[in-house]
């Protein structure tokens, strides 16, 4: 009981204040060190991406060629060194956060939006609709996602938006499957029948009552999918199919540094580390959220 008295959640409920779901989740998340580290990294990356255009001048500092300073090893002035065109790698890595996060978020949102709509239709209306959606989903998920990304980008042309679209579409099957499973477990609950008995239309029940009950697996899936979307975006950029050069996308920086791997390995190490840390941060947060959102694991 001692623990309960110190909990802010229980204290507020005595005054009949509406509990904020976000506060409860944060309260649970706070106990998980890994998730908090992940959240910290993600928040700082978001801040860096928002400020990068203010801090750096794209034309001179990020994309500007300065042959005189080429291939300087990491030193006080250029802490990550410079590349073969004399551009500061530290600045480029910081600036590149914008692309990775942007593509990661946008692609996942596209995937989630399409996936949740089809997944909830498949889960709620069993029968023919479910069969059609799930079989199409199987076909879509049978194609390796990188291959799918390459096909879509080469068909539509390499641009940042097409990259988002390609990665978004490849993450649809995951969302369809997870939403359908969650909806299946909710649709037969008595409150759904009770809502029908109050005269609510089915579309409204799905949108406002079933999907909110399925949010926790979807939220976890979002954080984990962002991580894999970042990897996919970097992979496609590495292949030259993503964000066009000279934008400092981490994947295309890896590609540029590839030919200097033996002589100037810092060209590839730092962008690689940036990808690693970002993906790790999202995975840590995703795992933490899964525990925080699971009522069975709540104390």
């Amino acid at each position: 009981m001692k623990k309960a008295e110190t909990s802010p959640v229980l204290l507020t409920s005595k005054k009949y204040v509406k509990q904020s779901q976000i506060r409860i989740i944060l309260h649970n998340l706070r106990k998980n060190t890994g998730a908090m580290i992940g959240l910290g990294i993600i928040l700082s990356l978001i801040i860096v991406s928002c400020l990068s255009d203010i801090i750096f001048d794209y034309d001179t500092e990020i994309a500007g060629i300065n042959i005189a300073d080429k291939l300087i090893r990491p030193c006080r002035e250029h802490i990550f060194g410079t590349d073969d065109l004399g551009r500061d790698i530290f600045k480029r890595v910081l600036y590149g956060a914008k692309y990775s996060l942007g593509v990661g978020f946008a692609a996942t949102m596209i995937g989630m939006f399409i996936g949740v709509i089809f997944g909830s239709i498949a889960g709620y209306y069993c029968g023919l609709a479910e069969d059609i959606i799930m079989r199409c989903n199987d076909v879509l998920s049978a194609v390796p996602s990188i291959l799918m990304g390459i096909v879509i980008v080469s068909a539509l042309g390499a641009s940042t938006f097409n990259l988002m679209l390609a990665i978004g579409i490849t993450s649809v099957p995951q969302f369809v499957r997870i939403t359908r499973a969650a909806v299946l477990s909710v649709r037969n609950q008595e409150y759904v029948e009770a809502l029908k008995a109050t005269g609510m239309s089915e579309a409204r029940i799905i949108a406002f009552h079933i999907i909110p009950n399925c949010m926790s697996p979807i939220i976890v899936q979002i954080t984990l999918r962002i991580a894999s979307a970042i990897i996919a975006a970097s992979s496609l950029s590495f292949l030259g199919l993503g964000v066009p050069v000279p934008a400092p996308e981490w994947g295309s920086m890896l590609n540029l540094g590839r030919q200097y791997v033996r002589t100037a390995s810092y060209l590839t190490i730092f962008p690689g580390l940036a990808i690693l840390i970002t993906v790790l941060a999202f995975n840590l947060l995703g795992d933490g959220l899964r525990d925080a959102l699971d009522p069975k694991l709540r104390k």
Partner: protein
Amino acid sequence: MEETVKTTNDDIVLELENLRVKFVLETETVEAVNGISISLRRGRTLGLAGETGAGKTTTALSLLRLVPYPGRVECDKLVVEGHDVLKMSQKELEKYRGADLAMIFQDPMTSLNPVFTVGQQIADTIMLHDPTTREDAMKKAEAMLELVGIPAARAVEYPHQFSGGMKQRVVIAIALACNPGVLIADEPTTALDVTIQAQVLALMKKLRDERGMSMIMITHDLGIIADVCDEVAIMYAGRIIEYGTLRDVFNHTRHPYTEGLFNSLPNIRSRREKLKPIPGLMPDPSNLPKGCAFAPRCRYATDACRAERPADRMLSDTHMVACTRYDEPGFRIDRPDRD
């Protein structure tokens, strides 16, 4: 709403004739309800009693036209508050549910959405049938909570912060939010303990009388029926086998099955007496006997009972019984009349 049918008697709020519900599966056909007729007058309460599987809940869902797939509902007439429910479109049905006919479900633990506060859920229902602002709906929701005996300040709490009895009060508040003419209560107290049961029943009776509402109380507890209802219909294997006023059925019991139900109750006056349960089990609804469905368990059954379905017989203006043996003049069951 269109299709307003003038009923012959303005007093009748719900009229159901010859309802049949079948669940057609690949391997078998389950005959859940086999010809039920109900008419309910304003302000009266009908008790629908019977064993599990007798078709009580299916009957209730048919009234809302919410029988799940693969159920097939056939019905000669269903008129509620002057609206012909059989001719309604999907949109009209959505308007009708909740506004004319509302339903309380059995388990309060699961009939509230866990992710919204109770105030939001009551307000949602109000806004469905009454276009108003969210603030007004929330105010009405708080008033509804007060009405069922919950402090209005608790409207901001989630269902998990309420106890079972409190949740059932919230469910009642939702059902009554749009002032329905008829309320169906499907075993509203089964999941509650006895003291809370008594409170909830008292609350329902009070609200019914205040609002002049009609009620259909589905239960397998004859005590609740005696407490709440004016009329009683005893169901067995999807049919009403005895129907009448509370007095007709409880004091002048005629059907052998009803007699069996009363004999299965413990007698408070002689506690040493053994209970006399009805032997056997309810017939499989996918394979009903040809004659009277109760015949295999009935100690009065004759060959005539087993050969043909009994017709509904009116014993008085109000009292109906479906038993072939009443063809014989002078046939009586053992249970004595009491007054």
